[in-house]
């Protein structure tokens, strides 16, 4: 009997467990290369609005990637990631607007700021467990919009703030939306690579150990609070970066864009996408972007209803999320091919 069964948790992803004989998709590199090629070609083939939608998917994907570090890797629940998104977005809007800083400076600045904030909040919050952390992070999400409104002189209050949009440099010959898409794509690729490196590192293994059996991990000398705090800060940084990109893409930030609902929807999207998989954030972001827009045609209250139904169905029928479904499908195809 392995640890996963003892603790009543789902099995780990294919290939992450010793002695796992499940079939895996045989051409991961080719698939990844093909996806990368499609991602690079997309802005030249699609209409500006579709490019914008793809950009939004990548932005939410980065935020969900960060959230997955907390939810999927460290097994905690955060209901406050919308707040870090707000921090990143407002940092960008204020820094490029009133302060007049150039774009390349803003991204590391907001990454640093949200990392610091995540660390500061994580220190007390992550000594708490389970539901208590969810409540503390929920409080963060609730507090941020009123705070933004209170400091109207800097943030524009409830009226929001126009964020200037990076325009394509003349030498590239790109349209603005194409440039923005490629910029976000590059950040997303870097974010994905960084997350994979983090998980393959010592602290990644420590996190997996903490998630599967905290007591055993502690006995082995893993400092639980330190690791959890650090991963929470990393996760906040991802959300902050996503917030900055959001401000660049939408060109406008307002407190109403970062309500507690956003935090909850992000968590739902992480679960629907699949919290413990590299494809999960992207699928979650697709869910986040397309389901409400598609459901709007069906009626006024439809987006909420449809989103709720999808969440319930996914959680019941595919506990590993859409990414889990994809993995099962890939495994089935691989098995079929293997037999022939």
């Amino acid at each position, binding site marked *: 009997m392995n640890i996963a069964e003892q603790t009543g948790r789902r099995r780990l992803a294919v290939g992450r467990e010793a002695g796992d004989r499940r079939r895996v998709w045989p051409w991961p590199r080719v698939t990844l*290369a093909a996806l*990368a*090629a499609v991602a*690079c*070609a997309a*802005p*030249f*083939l*699609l*209409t*500006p*609005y*579709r490019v*914008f939608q793809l950009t939004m998917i990548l932005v939410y994907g980065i935020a969900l990637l960060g959230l997955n570090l907390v939810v999927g890797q460290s097994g905690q629940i955060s209901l406050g990631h919308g707040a870090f998104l707000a921090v990143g977005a407002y940092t960008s809007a204020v820094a490029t607007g009133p302060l007049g800083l150039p774009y390349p400076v803003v991204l590391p600045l907001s990454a640093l700021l949200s990392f610091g904030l995540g660390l500061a909040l994580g220190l007390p919050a992550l000594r708490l467990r389970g539901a208590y952390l969810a409540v503390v992070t929920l409080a963060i999400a609730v507090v941020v*919009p*009123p705070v933004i*409104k209170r400091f109207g002189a800097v943030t*524009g*209050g*409830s*009226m*929001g703030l*126009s964020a200037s*949009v990076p325009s394509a440099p003349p030498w*590239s*010959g*790109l*349209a603005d939306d*194409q440039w923005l898409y490629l910029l976000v794509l590059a950040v997303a690729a870097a974010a994905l690579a960084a997350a994979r490196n983090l998980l393959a590192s010592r602290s990644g293994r420590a996190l997996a150990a903490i998630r599967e059996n905290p007591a055993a991990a502690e006995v082995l000398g893993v400092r639980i609070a330190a690791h959890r705090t650090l991963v929470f800060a990393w996760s906040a940084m991802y959300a902050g970066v996503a917030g900055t990109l959001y401000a660049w893409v*939408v*060109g*406008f*930030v*307002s407190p*109403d*864009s970062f309500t507690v609902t956003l935090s909850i929807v992000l968590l739902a999207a992480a679960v629907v996408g699949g919290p413990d998989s590299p494809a999960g954030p992207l699928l979650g972001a697709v869910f986040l972007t397309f389901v409400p*827009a598609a459901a*709007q045609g069906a009626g*006024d*209250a439809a987006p909420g209803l449809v989103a709720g139904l999808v969440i319930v169905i996914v959680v019941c029928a595919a506990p590993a999320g859409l990414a889990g479904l994809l993995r099962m499908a890939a495994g089935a195809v691989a098995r079929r091919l293997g037999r022939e």
Partner: protein
Amino acid sequence: MRGTGAQAARRTRARALAAAAALALVLPLGGCRLAGQDGVVRTGPCAGQQSTGITRDAVKVGGVYPLSGPASAYGAIAAGVRAYFGYVNAGGGVDGRRIEFVVRDDGYQPARAVEEVRRLVELDEVFAVFQTVGTPSTAAVRDYAARRRVPQVFVATGASRWGTDTAHPWTIGYQPSYVAEARVYAQHLKETAPQATVAVLYQNDDFGRDLRDGFADAVRDSGVRIVAEQSYEVTDPGVQGQLANLASSGADVLLSVTTPKFAAQAFAVDAAVTSWNPVHIVNSVAVSPAVMASVEAGKIREIVSAVYQKNAADPEWADDPAVGAYRESLLRYAPEADPASQQAMFGWTAAQAFVKALQRMECPTREGLRAAVHRLDEVPVDTLLPGITLSTGPGDGFPIESMMLARFEEGRWTSFGEVVDTRAVFGPVRTASAG
């Protein structure tokens, strides 16, 4: 899991090479795009202007309205607009062009308004954005409109900045600005109660501050004084506490600068407090049939507001042909809307103004529309009150600047006094609020 160091290094190098090759392939493609070219007029006097969304026999127009969310009462504006466009199409369209009207919901969230307008402009390829509702949503969209050079005309908000802002020439307001409305109330008080003390309840955003500041400006150097002020956030549950504080000032007049939900609460508290009986001035955006139906008329001394369009519920206009056409069309094209609603009438009237602007375009282009809305000379609209017309010009981006006072009596609004032309009395609006 991992290969040896040398293998990994080789693989990384190969991957970097592949990425560089992909970039080198992609970059020369820059600028070219296989889909989504905008239409441009090629020849004639209008050469070089954008003709997206307009053809010889159709014009596509997009509007973003709060059909859901806290301000969904303003969704009725869309019904009024739809009814008027239906009425125009039944009569052969505008200069032979059928109007196709695409409505999207922003839930009164500015960021969603930006997304929806993007969808309208880039995916549906509309000719112009008519309208956006609310100051936050409009402010959020106008940068995009200016960047894409898409007209955002006759927005449904009275913030004074639409008319004074030269950096956003593609955005223009419609209704009397909040400053103009504040001036009408100030003028009324100066004439009828020159020594009045005023308590102000206002929504703490651009809308509320615009009207409050306009009022404070207009009563400066007169006997009318503001003796108490209380603000609330649009997300607050109620304004009972604020009203209690204002009541303790004992002012002669209560100026309620609110949106419908809070206006109704202010009326309820005013009616409940028997020790304080001020003249209750309520701004026009708060007036809706639902709000007024909840008012306990006997318990409030006097309710005053300002109006500029005909009221379909008023018997004075029962036989008016313009109002008759409005009622009939609303029943046919938007049966779910209440004809008595000021919002539906607002949509109908604004749509009529929009059609007049379309008729005045010299070029059937976005540039042509932009020029037309900035060159209106006393254009009549049959559902505006007699004596009120649309006028704009160079340096004047406010189509309507005249209003009339109305009193709420026996369950309906009755206008009184003369039409106040605030431009003539106070001069042009100069102050733009921050941002």
